[in-house]
């Protein structure tokens, strides 16, 4: 077992309930996508797994070290790409020589070796997100949390990075919790898709995806079937959100 959520709920001080009664077991090494409409508490859930937020109900258990990739790369602009990647190691007190070695290795794996000395603002969005992935992997996490990491990228860069992420993950034994609101992305990447409802977020579906990788969601029959049943459920939740927004009842 890598992650255990037991009846997790989160209610904010203003009375808004973001999550309600979420229970999940995620075994080590599984790639899980959390799928749901915007504002369903996916990111709140991830923040709790990262230890950035605490549930107001229930219990979260995360085994091992956690690494995280944020929606925007969230690199530190005053640090070179190398020093950004080595940030977690630096906080652990790893020596400069060793962390530079580790950073160089990771930069090679995300194809950014040439940009080790560059600064974040000199890189494109896709390259920044690659650096953020390298930073998250640098501390050898057992659990990699990803909060819509490719949401702001153009379609081509996005599919390139999805492919690279799978290459980095496969055989690593790492648990990945990947938040997205794109059904296609979830189908392409995950072992398992957890569908969350509109606010307050609850688990309303838990699907296993067994198709072999690399996947082609347009060709594979299993994926097509899943796509069909998931898109109906997802559309209902998205509708609920827009109705709530129109009536001001969020």
């Amino acid at each position, binding site marked *: 077992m890598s992650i255990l959520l037991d009846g997790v709920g989160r209610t904010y001080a203003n009375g808004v309930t973001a999550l309600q009664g979420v229970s999940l077991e995620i075994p080590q090494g599984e790639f899980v996508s959390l799928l749901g409409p915007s504002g369903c508490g996916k990111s709140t859930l991830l923040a709790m797994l990262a230890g950035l937020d605490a549930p107001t109900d229930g219990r979260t258990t995360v085994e091992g070290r956690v690494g995280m990739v944020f929606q925007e790369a969230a690199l530190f602009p005053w640090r070179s790409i190398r020093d950004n990647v080595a*940030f977690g190691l630096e906080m652990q007190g790893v020596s400069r020589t060793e962390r530079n070695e580790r950073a160089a290795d990771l930069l090679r794996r995300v194809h950014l070796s040439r940009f080790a000395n560059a600064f974040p603002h000199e890189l494109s969005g896709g390259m920044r997100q690659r650096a953020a992935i390298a930073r998250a992997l640098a501390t050898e996490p057992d659990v990699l949390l990803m909060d819509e990491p490719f949401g702001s990228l153009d379609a081509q860069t996005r599919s390139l990075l999805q492919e690279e992420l799978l290459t980095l993950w496969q055989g690593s034994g790492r648990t990945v919790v990947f938040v997205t609101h794109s059904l296609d992305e979830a189908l392409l990447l995950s072992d398992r898709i957890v569908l969350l409802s509109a606010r307050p977020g609850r688990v309303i579906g838990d699907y296993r995806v067994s198709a072999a990788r690399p996947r082609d969601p347009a060709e594979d029959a299993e994926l097509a079937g899943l796509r069909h049943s998931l898109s109906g459920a997802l559309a209902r939740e998205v509708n609920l959100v827009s109705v709530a927004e129109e009536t001001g009842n969020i």
Partner: protein
Amino acid sequence: MIRSTPTVSPAAQRAPAAARWLPPSPTNSGAAAAGFSRLAFYALLVGLWWLAAYREVWPPYLLPSPGSVAQFLADFVRDGTLLPALLTSAGRVLLGFAVSLLIGTALGLALARVRLLDETLGGMIVGLQSLPSICWFPLALIWFGLNEKAVLFVVVMGAVFAVTLAVRSGVRSLPPLWTRAAQVFGARGWALWRHVLLPGILPAYLAGMRQGWAFAWRSLMAAELLSQSLKVGVGHLLSTGRDLNDMAMVLGMIGVILVIGLAVDRVLFVPVELWVARRWGTEGA
């Protein structure tokens, strides 16, 4: 394997690693042209001044020639009056600036972190910033007497709030994402401050320092003009010029005071600010 042809932003392609550390130079010829027109403008100004003095449009005791002002300054340097006065004023402004930085930084951090403090004291500080610092001088005279403490008080009151407000807004405008990322990767307590929060507010902090410096220097000059009996600083020399009805001395000292204020800004603050803006990528943002 992965088909990867990383795309590079145009800025990275243009700038080789070393060039990032230099001031921006995309428009060297434009800068040179601007520099030339500026030089020509000042030359014209001095020319007009010289012409007006030469023709005695106003009598020399009202408008001495550029030559006699230069002569006066040269004499002042030679007879050893100017340098000690400069050092005295520099000592006062540096002490006042340092105290302002210490208090301003601590106060700014406190305002940024404690909401109640910000709603009460913060509002008052914003209001107080519109009070010319020399207005504190009579109060300082009664509290401390006519001495260095009174001058220091006026300088600090002039500079401290600019620093305070810059630190406050710097901390406030830090993207929460940076703090979250830092925490996920294990930055706690002092490490969080040292590696993320302080570097994060540096651009705002520098702007506040620069403004604080300008206020400190102005406040000191005002205080020196009103405190003749203290150890002689450049402000006192300006005041003495008036007492002696020596217009060359008055104009010369105005020039000296202006040049010091500008020089510290241009030589110290502008290059550091440019460097930070380039490195932080906040340039033009």
